[in-house]
């Protein structure tokens, strides 16, 4: 695993280390899956969530009738948390960096929600798009959700979230400097304010996504009128016919 991948894994292990849930996000994940259901036959399709995290999309996929969706994530902690849930017997979990996993085009559809896109080598937008394309069958579909440069102002600020009403209160600060193409996320648990973790994620424009998708042989379409997680934009991508 590359150093960059190890850093990302460590950050997400830390985020998941005290459990908690993201129930607030479930309606957004369900909306994503409904969108994908219009593109793919869920009865027969093989689906993957690249960067599945705590599994909200995997749950929505199984609820929609998908058989054994595959969840891939760098964070062993999130995957181990998932093994302890009622989903464990209905999904397949793989600990991998999907940007370097040589799985080949076996999936009819892939979901990739809020991947870490940054200047760090191996995690730029083109690399991520290229990796998603290589996992997807010809004619398949990719649902990609990204923080969006035109919408990030909606999520800047400081938030305190108490997961499950127990020990997982987490304080997040999201900042965005005008003119910059990235957001900074700073987080700490409420009881350990000095143990703060920071992350910078790129926020490409819609045109940038279109161009980068085209560069790797895909057509991207931004989805309007979609139930959208604040600060983000959702795209459907298809591999262009040769």
């Amino acid at each position, binding site marked *: 695993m590359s150093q960059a991948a190890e850093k990302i894994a460590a950050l997400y292990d830390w985020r998941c280390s005290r459990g908690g849930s993201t129930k607030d996000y479930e309606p957004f994940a369900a909306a994503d899956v409904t969108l994908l259901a219009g593109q793919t036959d869920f009865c027969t399709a093989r689906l993957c969530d690249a960067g599945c995290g705590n599994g909200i999309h995997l749950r929505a996929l199984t609820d929609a009738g998908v*058989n*054994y969706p595959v969840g891939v994530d760098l964070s062993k902690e999130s995957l181990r948390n998932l093994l*302890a849930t009622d989903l464990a017997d209905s999904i*397949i979990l*793989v600990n*991998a960096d999907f940007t370097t*996993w*040589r799985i080949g*085009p076996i999936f009819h559809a892939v979901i990739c929600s809020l991947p870490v896109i940054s200047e760090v080598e191996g995690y730029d937008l083109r690399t991520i798009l290229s990796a998603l394309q290589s996992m997807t*069958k010809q004619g398949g579909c990719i649902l990609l959700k990204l923080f969006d440069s035109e919408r990030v102002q909606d999520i800047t600020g400081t938030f305190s979230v108490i997961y499950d009403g127990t020990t997982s209160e987490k304080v997040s600060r999201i900042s965005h400097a005008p003119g910059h193409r990235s957001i900074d996320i700073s987080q700490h648990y409420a009881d350990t304010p000095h143990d703060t973790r920071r992350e910078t994620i790129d926020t490409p424009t819609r045109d940038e996504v279109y161009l980068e998708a085209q560069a790797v042989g895909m057509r991207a379409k931004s989805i309007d009128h979609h139930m959208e997680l604040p600060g983000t934009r959702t795209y459907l991508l298809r591999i262009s016919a040769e």
Partner: protein
Amino acid sequence: MSEESFHKVQYQQLGYTIFTNAVSKHLIGAMRSKVFAARDCELIGGDESTHSWREFPLAASDLPSEPVLKEYLASVLPLASIRIVHWLNIYRVDEYIEAHVDAGGEAQLMIPIEIPPSGGGGEIWIGANERLLPLGVGDALLFAAHRVQHGTTKVLDGQRVSLNARMWMH
């Protein structure tokens, strides 16, 4: 549970775990050369049925050292106390192995060396519901072949070659 690795928990709970990018291109190349060089008379029939696959026995000296794979395995099994037998499986068009549970061994490692093109079959499945496992060349599947049902789908195109290792704990 928090002391144990994800792979160990997954193996104990579900009877399998997947190690991605676990083996070197050197090993893949060496095993492909063996299959290429082998004549049919050097291969052993997998069973007597019409869909039978073929096997090619390997000595430990046939295998290059694989540090990444060893590290993965050590996170699940007590490597110091393991005895291992290796062989290659070769499935050609129309060949597969039916649902079964192995009679011997306590754990099995399966490393795809060559896989059919997308849609060409030859995939391993596991469990009563026959869940297809996503495995690329260079990945490794550790599974409890003696306690979980498993099999492969029929090869429709190309061939499927896998390196297998059956393990016993002392």
